[in-house]
């Protein structure tokens, strides 16, 4: 089941890792994405740390690590085709992160997120 953060990320558990992307709402707000800088695989990050730079035609913004952990993989296709984030934000994952233990119970479910973005 997908979970959501207040920073408009979607989180999908896959074994002991979490796959992270941004929501359709976030991609619409950003507008056409033209640049993405991903973190290095193997980097240890804190929860809330800004680890992805995402720039649209309008502005620059960041994507934060939803939890503390180690980056185990990044979507290497994205920097060459950043428009994928607008075309299909649920398919355009950014990175996989491995926390000490996966616990997504504190994040919003679909209904909770829809209530947030109205």
């Amino acid at each position, binding site marked *: 089941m997908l979970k959501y953060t207040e920073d408009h990320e979607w989180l999908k558990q896959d074994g002991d890792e979490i796959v992270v992307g941004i929501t359709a709402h976030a991609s619409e707000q950003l*507008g056409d994405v033209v640049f993405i800088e991903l973190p290095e695989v193997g980097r240890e990050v804190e929860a809330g740390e800004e680890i992805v730079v995402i720039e649209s035609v309008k502005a620059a913004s960041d994507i934060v690590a939803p939890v503390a952990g180690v980056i185990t993989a990044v979507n290497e296709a994205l920097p060459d085709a950043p428009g994928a984030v607008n075309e299909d934000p649920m398919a355009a994952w950014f990175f996989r992160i491995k926390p000490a233990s996966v616990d997504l119970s504190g994040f919003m479910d679909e209904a909770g997120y829809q209530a947030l973005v109205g």
Partner: protein
Amino acid sequence: MAEFRRTTLYDLHLARGAKMVPFAGWEMPVQYPMGVLNEHLHTRSHAGLFDVSHMGQVILRGPGAAEALEGLVPADITGLAEGRQRYGLFTNAEGGILDDLMIANKGDHLLLVVNAACAEQDIAHLRQLEAQGILVEPVTDRGLLALQGPEAEAVLARLVPGAQAMKFMDVAEFDWQGVTLWVSRSGYTGEDGFEISVPEDRVVAFAEALLAEPEVAPIGLGARDSLRLEAGMPLYGHDMDARTLPGEAGLGWSIPKVRRTGGAREGGFPGADVILDELAAGPARSRMGLRPEGRAPIREGVGIFDAAEGGAGLGKVCSGGFGPSVGGPVAMAVLPAGLAPGATLWAELRGKRIPVTITPLPFHKPSYKR
């Protein structure tokens, strides 16, 4: 929060799904559902319709209006033929730029189009010409549309037969369903196109008629900005302001020989001593194009350095972003004039120095019908 003004097309923008943002005291569409990127590309390949009704339209009337305006604007206005338009600058006593504007000779009067953010100040500035018997009439009952792109001519000619005969920077009046359109063949996108002033009570109908043509899509300020940036056109308040000399801004070309040192109508405008000295000596700094390496946009305010580490700061980016037709980031900065195209400099972005190459402007070659 301040009250924002709305153009007559406000409801049309909303009906077409525009995202509205504050701009120069107005609430304007920044983009429509098509998105900035596709709006930009649509304008370059078809035709885009822009609401530019926030811009100021001002009429100057009276014998000697052209001579009088030359006292504020270092351009050749008395030599401007009837039915023609020209670009110019309002300058201040320090030689800085108060605004940039279009000046059209319409026979018995001049029609000026000025930036929205400067309109009030420009009109107050123009009122000093009243002492010379010139009437200054702000046009408050007309909207202004820009139809831009390679298919603009075909579209406008369908609604307004005869418009296709106009050449770049021509101005003319046409009848459309009983109303008089003031048309100029110009714009600020680097594309062929027209700016069309329409009586307020018919501007929605005229805009709808244009939008009903298959080539035309509504385009917001987001794409307007990337289009003019690719075309190497400066935007007032970003690429020039009251402290920027015309030469620095890369606008020395708008000051013709006749107004320069040794010319028949030399000087006689605010800041002439400073401006003419700058033009004679060659500007110390000049607006240049930059192509950053990689895909990261280099935006306004980013510092430009002469070394990959340390080194000296040379200036700041005045306009920058992603160029959809170029397919990569593009930027402009005012930099020491000795720098030549092809030279590599470095932009400091998020603590990292990114190589940028000085590139001749424009990034995208205009396709005007001359």
